[in-house]
């Protein structure tokens, strides 16, 4: 196999952000996320690439997530998390399963993010549970949330029930998900979407974590704002 070098010498390392919904310390949800992130890093090194990882432990953000849900206030930790995710090249999102669903803390964190913060970013979805009966939570519950956020979820879901921790197959699934997300980062897909097609998604002023500040002065509404008619101009949207 030829090793493909994606970036020139001295290029910025890939920025991988781990979001863990684990609540204990140590947490199996966090451990699963770390194993995936480690594997991505190892695979990248084999290909002469570097990965820098930041971790968002949602447990530390619990009260700020609650505040954000019921008010419009983003606390300093939420602000930092949003800033990290906004410039992430890829995300590992790992949730504990509660009552046949990703934990409320995990889901709520993603509920309060701007809809366009994660567009086209590669995401590895992972979950832990006490029983393998929860195995489809990743595909049935988490994948739809991340589809709504228009992320690029990798094909392999990583699920670990108690009995999986010592299995060789879990390690293989982790490796598969890791190479998938690495290849997506290498492709530069998310960045190309941002430079070539970003405007074709729905945005609000100040969305994407406060970075979406472009104002289209030629829109129908802007025409109306400046004394024009509310009738659509028929101008094709970009």
């Amino acid at each position, binding site marked *: 196999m030829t090793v493909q070098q994606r970036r020139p010498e001295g290029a910025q390392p890939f920025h991988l952000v781990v979001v863990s919904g684990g609540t204990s310390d140590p947490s199996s949800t966090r451990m699963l996320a770390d194993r995936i992130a480690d594997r991505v890093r190892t695979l990248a090194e084999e290909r002469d690439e570097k990965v820098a990882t930041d971790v968002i432990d949602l447990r530390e953000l619990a009260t700020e997530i609650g505040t954000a849900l019921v008010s419009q206030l983003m606390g300093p930790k939420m602000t930092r998390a949003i800033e990290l995710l906004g410039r992430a090249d890829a995300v590992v999102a790992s949730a504990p399963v509660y009552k046949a669903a990703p934990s409320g803390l995990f889901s709520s964190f993603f509920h309060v993010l701007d809809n366009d913060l994660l567009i086209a970013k590669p995401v590895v979805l992972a979950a832990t549970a006490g029983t393998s009966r929860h195995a489809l939570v990743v595909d049935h519950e988490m994948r739809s949330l991340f589809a709504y956020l228009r992320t690029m979820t990798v094909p392999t879901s990583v699920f670990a029930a108690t009995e999986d921790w010592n299995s060789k197959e879990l390690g293989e699934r982790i490796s598969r998900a890791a190479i998938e997300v690495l290849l997506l980062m290498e492709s530069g897909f998310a960045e190309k979407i941002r430079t070539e097609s970003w405007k074709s998604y729905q945005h609000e002023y100040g969305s994407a974590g406060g970075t979406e500040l472009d104002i289209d002065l030629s829109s129908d*509404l802007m025409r109306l*704002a400046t*004394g024009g008619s*509310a009738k659509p101009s028929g101008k094709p949207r970009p």
Partner: protein
Amino acid sequence: MQFGIFSVSDITRDPVSGETPSEAERIDGILKIAVKAEEVGLDVFAIGEHHNPPFFSSSPTTLLSHIAALTERLIVTTATTLITTNDPVRIAEEYAMLQHLSKGRMDLMLGRGNTAPVYPWFGQDIRQGLPLALEHYNLLHRLWREDVVDWEGEFRTPLQGFTSTPRPLDDVPPFVWHGSIRTPEIAEQAAFYGNGYFANHIFWPTSHSKRLVDFYRQRFEHYGHGTRKQAIVGLGGHAYIAKRSQDAVSEFRPYFNEAPVYGHGPSLEEFTQGTPLSVGSPQEVIDKTLTFHDAFGDYQRQMFLIDHAGMPLKMVLNQLDLLGEEVVPVLRKELAARRDPESADAPTHASLVKAKYGDGPARQPRPNANRGDNVTGASPYQDSDAAAEYPEI
């Protein structure tokens, strides 16, 4: 620089006493608050508009004209007038009447309203809220500037040969502020017409409000109304003052904790840190308010929210004493010292009359006699520029 207070007109249970005021008590209370605002030297009183409980202010012009009659200097205004669910023709008529009755001591702020069920009660749809607001203002703008209006739009029945009466006082339209927290189109409309732009500046950090204020300033200049510094900016703010900082926090906390808008959410400390809210001694409130000037530069109007969340009347009146006697005089002095001579003064009726007529006499429209065709007349006033044309009877 004008200082004032704005009320959303909520009738909320006092979480300390457990009492909920009656509508009658709260309406009486707001009159005392407005009169007191003038007594302590504030310039502006604003009331919101709502059409559902627990709010009382469904008819702002009725309330404001009464307040104008009870006061001598106070400017009465709104925060906000619903430009979406109100017919702009009725806004033109009612606020022109208020302008006459208050002898020009009024202006108004336009907002969209974010309570979805209210829209259908008035035959509208919140999904069309923004185009409604924009189109309605376009019409309102003309109704106050043209004696006879022909108009057709998407949202309102067309008008042919319509005259909004009474014509504005001295034929100078009331000054309009466009209120918005995150809608560039509203800032653009304010800039296009050379009107004021108001940032509510309560729930979000100053940096958030600054983006659109900067955009508005830039567009104000683009449309040739003056330089960026001459654009007309108003800011909200939210304060609770006590002589001693720790008393302010302990007195205000129960009201904050159960406030309808953010109660049971962030802590008082988090909210004070993350938003323009200041809770503390007069000096602390002064210091925080001066940071607004650091961020926005010279601006024309600062409004404070001081009467919400079930705070009893006595407490609000005490807030007004502290605001008027210990906070605002210092702010006036500090901001005057910082002021760039290029910046605009806050617009008043007198300044608008002066801008339109110089030292000359203001137009005083006198209607032509009723000939039986006065609803279709092309030129209903004696001094109208075009000669009146009447159909053969």
